[in-house]
């Protein structure tokens, strides 16, 4: 059996009386591509936040790369190889693409504490940044300020920031949300080209987009796992169709 990279044991996140995530247990194996689907409000992004440490789980355990990270702040999880993108683009808007890449490159390097040094690329940094930017087709936009990029380009930069950290686990929160069909296909293409040893967990609303990209699908509904299966099995699953199409349960 393949080695597990991320294990969730009975993870719950409660906001007061609302249990946004309610006892989720699953295991993602190394190199796997997993999609997290479910209707609005199913708890997908909250589960991401519990995994990355933005909101620590109120119950349960998160085990990443063999270590219990349940109470670890996001920056320490990042240092262990976990990277994420955000559903609503979360970039450094007043900085250029290149400066965004510099920040992403140095999050885990002591160079971030250089108080009076030069901020320019150093050693292999430029090469790494170029490789990530080329991968997301932003090679020509290095000196553009983020707020001047199109929305699609911002989504591509979201990906580049995570990729340049050389993560072992990449969590993508609706990477294609709000994009035109053309921009969508670019993002799908980028995801398809990612190295196979990188473990991916992907939130996406659009089932058609997801099903061709991943090995397994977890469908969340009201904070709980409804089904966990291969894309083909999900496609024919009555329960999944029900939550997506909103058919009354006891019709």
């Amino acid at each position, binding site marked *: 059996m393949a080695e597990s990279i991320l294990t969730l044991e009975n993870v719950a996140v409660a906001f007061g009386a609302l249990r946004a995530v309610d006892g989720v247990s699953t295991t993602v194996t190394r190199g796997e591509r997993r999609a997290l689907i479910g209707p609005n409000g199913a708890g997908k992004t909250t589960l991401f936040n519990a995994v*990355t440490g*933005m909101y620590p789980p109120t119950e349960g355990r998160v085990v990443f790369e063999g270590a219990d990270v349940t109470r670890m*702040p*996001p*920056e320490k999880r*990042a*240092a262990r190889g976990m*990277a*994420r993108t*955000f559903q609503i683009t*979360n*970039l*450094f*808007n*007043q*900085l250029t693409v290149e*400066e965004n890449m*510099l*920040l*992403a490159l*140095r*999050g*885990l390097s002591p*160079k*971030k*504490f*250089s*108080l*009076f*040094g*030069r*901020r320019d690329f150093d050693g292999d940094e430029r090469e790494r940044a170029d490789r990530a930017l080329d991968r997301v087709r932003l090679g020509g936009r290095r000196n553009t*300020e983020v707020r001047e990029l199109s929305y699609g380009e911002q989504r591509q930069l979201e990906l580049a*920031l995570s990729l340049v*950290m050389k993560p072992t686990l990449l969590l993508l929160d609706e990477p294609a949300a709000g994009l035109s069909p053309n921009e969508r296909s670019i993002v799908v293409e980028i995801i398809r080209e990612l190295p196979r040893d990188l473990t991916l967990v992907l939130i996406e609303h659009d089932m058609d987009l997801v099903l061709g990209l991943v090995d397994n699908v977890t469908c969340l509904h009201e904070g709980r796992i409804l089904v966990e299966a291969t894309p083909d099995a999900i496609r024919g699953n009555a329960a999944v169709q029900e939550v997506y199409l909103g058919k009354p349960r006891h019709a």
Partner: protein
Amino acid sequence: MSSVLSTASRTSSPRTTAIFFAGSVALLAILPAVLPTYHVSVATQILIFGLFAMSIDILAGYAGRTSLGHGAIFGTATYVVLYGVANAGLPLALAIPLAVVAATLLAAIFAALAIRTTGVYFLLLTLALGMIVWGICLRWSVVTGGENGIRGDIRPAFIGDARSFYYVTLGCSVVLTWAMWRFIRSPFGLTLSGIRDSESRMRSLGYNVSLHLFIGFVMSGVFAGLAGALYALFNNFVSPSTVALTQSVTGLLMAIVGGVGTLFGALIGSFVMIALENFVSFYTQRWLTVLGLVFIFTMIFAPAGVLGTIRVLRARRQG
């Protein structure tokens, strides 16, 4: 307000900056030759407050944290220099480093308490901390002289006259301005801008946001303290008004008038405010009213400040 305060932060190219910097220094160096003594002294004051306003801009413009406690940090250094030399009989060469250490420690305390807050909460917390320092300076009269403050002719004889002291201040200003510019352009300075734009993204990239803000605040305090120590030499007098809220507000207004997030704009702001204060004082006692009006007009007509507006216009012209 914070969105307005964080506009126009794009810094010019290093070459433009170097030319601008060299030109300004050359201009400032010939000033004493053409100005009467009183105006040389005003120019000295402008430089010192320019440094102070720049230290505030490091936080306001680059880390997105607007402090109203920097007057207390600045004034604490002034107090320590004057107390050390005039009351405790310390040599100036010891009193100045002690003053900077005191300002740094105070900044570290402020930072530890304030960095977890943002926006108006950060503003209010630093304001309250500054008020505490003001209260201590007012009440602890055995050390601070209470309302009377501390007076002492502490400036060494060789820089006793206004012109030579102006050159000392100019020299310090060049070095400190350069150091602050290097600081905000450093890899660390970039992390402060990153925190200003998105804290959650910084955390998921592996940055300890609190630690970076703490270091940024303390460094800003070091520069404010250095300016405060210079001010002790300039003024030969300190009283609670040096650490009061008005001082913090004046420094912040200078940064805003010059252009938050432009660093050098703070010097322009200092020039505008001090020149205006001197000019207005000929005609009216109501300086604070004028100050309020300046602030309102800046916010309405040029929220990016003098230098910020110049940059916006230039960028527009270049298309």
